[in-house]
């Protein structure tokens, strides 16, 4: 019995690990969207983060530089998006799509020389506790620092948006940039900051993939996780806690259906592979039914170009 429990614990630990990149990227994108900016470049920023994290790790042999560097590279690539949409007033959707295409191509080009190089072991915390406590041990201990950070992030984000002045200003800008501007708020600055923060978080999410989750560089290794993160933000109706729930469900069903495939259930593989997507959407739609709350959480100006009257 205790063996079974421990196995379930390990399974839950694995589910948590697989949802980390989604939580990080979605939390970042959530802040960006709350300021009224729709950045569809999440996938592109993640993959740039993944390759630059891995490349820096190989070149500097220092994991700290690698992680910080991946955030910086995500930030830099999101700056391109910021310049285009905020200063040159291009369309958010088209620019975001271009960013993703750019990111995937760019990462493949840089990554050419890094294919097949083995990764470095990332330090895991509380390994002894993981072994000594059955069931709870593998759930709570033996993870990388990024996982702990990712699981705290939605709560921090929630607090930041609801309780702090800057959070209030971000929500206000997302609600009505014109009003905010007339109140003397620098809308462009706020939106730039949110875009850059989102970029950094997506970069971080990418580096988790290439440094910790599957420590190596594989072309296109984000595999659509950026798009999942984007969808999570919308289906979670811009609530950070629901993003966390959604990411866990998605990660959970992904892992479970892999096990089901391994067991050899007589369900078509295609259906099992589609299950995480379907279930996540169903659950998030069900828990966010309250249309009134949706209205209050939705950034009204999402995707709208703002320019100041002169």
């Amino acid at each position, binding site marked *: 019995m205790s063996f079974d429990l421990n196995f379930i614990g390990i399974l839950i630990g694995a589910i948590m690990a697989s949802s980390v990149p989604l939580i990080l990227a979605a939390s970042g994108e959530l802040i960006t969207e709350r300021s009224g900016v729709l950045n569809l470049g999440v996938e592109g920023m993640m993959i740039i983060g993944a390759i630059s994290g891995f490349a820096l790790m190989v070149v500097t042999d220092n994991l700290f530089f690698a992680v910080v560097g991946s955030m910086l590279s995500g930030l830099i690539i999101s700056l391109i998006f910021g310049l285009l949409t905020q200063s040159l007033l291009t369309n958010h959707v088209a620019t975001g799509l271009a960013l993703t295409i750019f990111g995937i191509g760019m990462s493949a080009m840089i990554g050419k020389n890094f294919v097949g190089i083995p990764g470095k072991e990332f330090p895991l915390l509380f390994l002894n506790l993981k072994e000594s406590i059955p069931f709870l041990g593998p759930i709570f201990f033996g993870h990388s620092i990024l996982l702990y950070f990712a699981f705290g992030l939605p709560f921090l984000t929630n607090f930041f948006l609801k309780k702090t002045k800057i959070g*209030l200003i971000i929500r*206000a800008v997302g609600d009505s940039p014109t009003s*905010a501007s007339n109140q003397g708020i620098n809308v462009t600055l706020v939106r730039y900051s949110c875009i850059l923060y989102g970029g950094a978080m997506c970069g971080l999410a990418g580096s988790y993939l290439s440094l910790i989750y599957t420590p190596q560089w594989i072309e296109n290794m984000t595999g659509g996780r950026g798009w999942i993160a984007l969808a999570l933000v919308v289906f979670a109706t811009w609530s950070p806690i629901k993003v966390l729930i959604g990411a866990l469900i998605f990660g959970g069903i992904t892992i479970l259906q892999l096990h089901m495939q391994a067991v050899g259930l007589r369900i078509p593989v295609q259906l099992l592979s589609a299950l995480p997507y379907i279930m996540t959407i169903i659950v998030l739609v069900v828990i966010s039914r309250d249309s009134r709350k949706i209205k209050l959480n939705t950034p009204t100006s999402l995707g709208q170009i703002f320019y100041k009257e002169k």
Partner: protein
Amino acid sequence: MNTKLKVSEISKIYPGCIANDKVSLEFGSGKIYALLGENGAGKSTLVKILSGVVKPDEGEVFLNNESIKLNSPLDAKKNNIGMVFQHFNLFETLSVFENLSIDSDKKDEELRALIKDILKKYNFKIDLDIPVLNLSAGQKQKVEIIRCLIRNPKVLIMDEPTSVLTEQETDDLFISLKQFSKDGILIIYITHKLKEVLSLCDEVAVMRKGKVVSVSNTIDEKIESLANKMVGENLNTIKKKINNFKNSEEILKISNLNFKSDDPYETNLNNLNLSLKKGECLGIAGISGNGQNELFQILSGEIITEGTSIMFRNKEISKLNPRERREYLMAFSPEDRISQAAVPELKIYENVALNNFKSSNFFEKGLVNEKKIKEHSKKILSNFSVNTDNVELKSQFLSGGNLQKLIIGRELITSPELLVCFNPTWGLDVGAINYIHETLIQINEHGKSSILISTDNDELLKLSDRICVIYKGKLSKIMNADTVTAEKLGILMGGGSID
């Protein structure tokens, strides 16, 4: 404390239009000043300059004899100039308190206490912790005013504040404004409503085509004199003969109209019943957001509701779509000229073609019959005195008044039996309003019927044969227009009851 505000030689030129042409004005505290003018006269540009939203090309602003720079809204705030815009600058999804705290550097508790003091002092009743989208227009405006009062303003500018208010709310606003004025705040009141100038303000400056054409004491003015100054010509007044429709044929009968919406921004309609006779004008009053939008969309067929019966010319039409209803001689003029009635990027004749009938033959074998449409459009332009004869002009270059004439003309040229219009003169200037009113009266004189949904009580009293009020999705009793007064309407519009 005395405040003196002076604008000197202010000019602002936009491509193709001189919004302000060397405007010079002086104001002093203790008085309420009116800035009067038609749309496009330059009032809004001037107040945008005073509030730091727009920078002037030339000229200076002096506060207490010191020249001040107003490069951003922050500068206006720093100089204690408060501004309540016509279109509210509120964040709908944030709570009232969040809206007020966003630009304040005070601590939350301190700010809350200050707001409570203001609420008490001026007898405002607003729940600070509900989202702004739940407030009525009048309450939203109070939030805007409180936002200014928090900063101890020396100058308070109100831009067309009553366009969204009921009579009752307007009265309350005037009482508050007089109180602010007594407390030493200099008040500048922008409007194109003449009555308000006379009942509220001490001095009035009239603007026309970017220039100040007159400054005078309101005691020396009358409605007619101000109107003529504003328009620059003599206007004739309109009167409608009130008719007796007892023996006329019934043309429209609506029963059990119910509408339930999932959208919190929309209003549910609750068991509306009404009927209309040939040649009659039914006015529907109410503060905006009480279900007018939904009612209009149900009448026009944009929303189809279950269980509602709409009998028009002895035919059940409740399941017909807007185009089928038009074919059956109903016509519609929606509230929003730009987004609902016309496509601003299209040329005039293309907009005319949008309203096509089987009988009009605008399209032949799937091809556009441009010649026919253009002829038809020219006819509308000349019959309804739109100030252009160029059907190739993009509609966005028409002024509000001319666009409205085009829209009404497009609807009327097919001689419909019923015209439903929603705020047809919203935001128009006196000249255009007069024209539209005359047209609407003519419809009735020719034996056609009309439903006038409007938030302008003067307009309703002028044009309607019978009037009712819509409040929170319910209709009041339908009354004969000669028994109705503006006061009665005001009470009903605020949810009160009469007799």
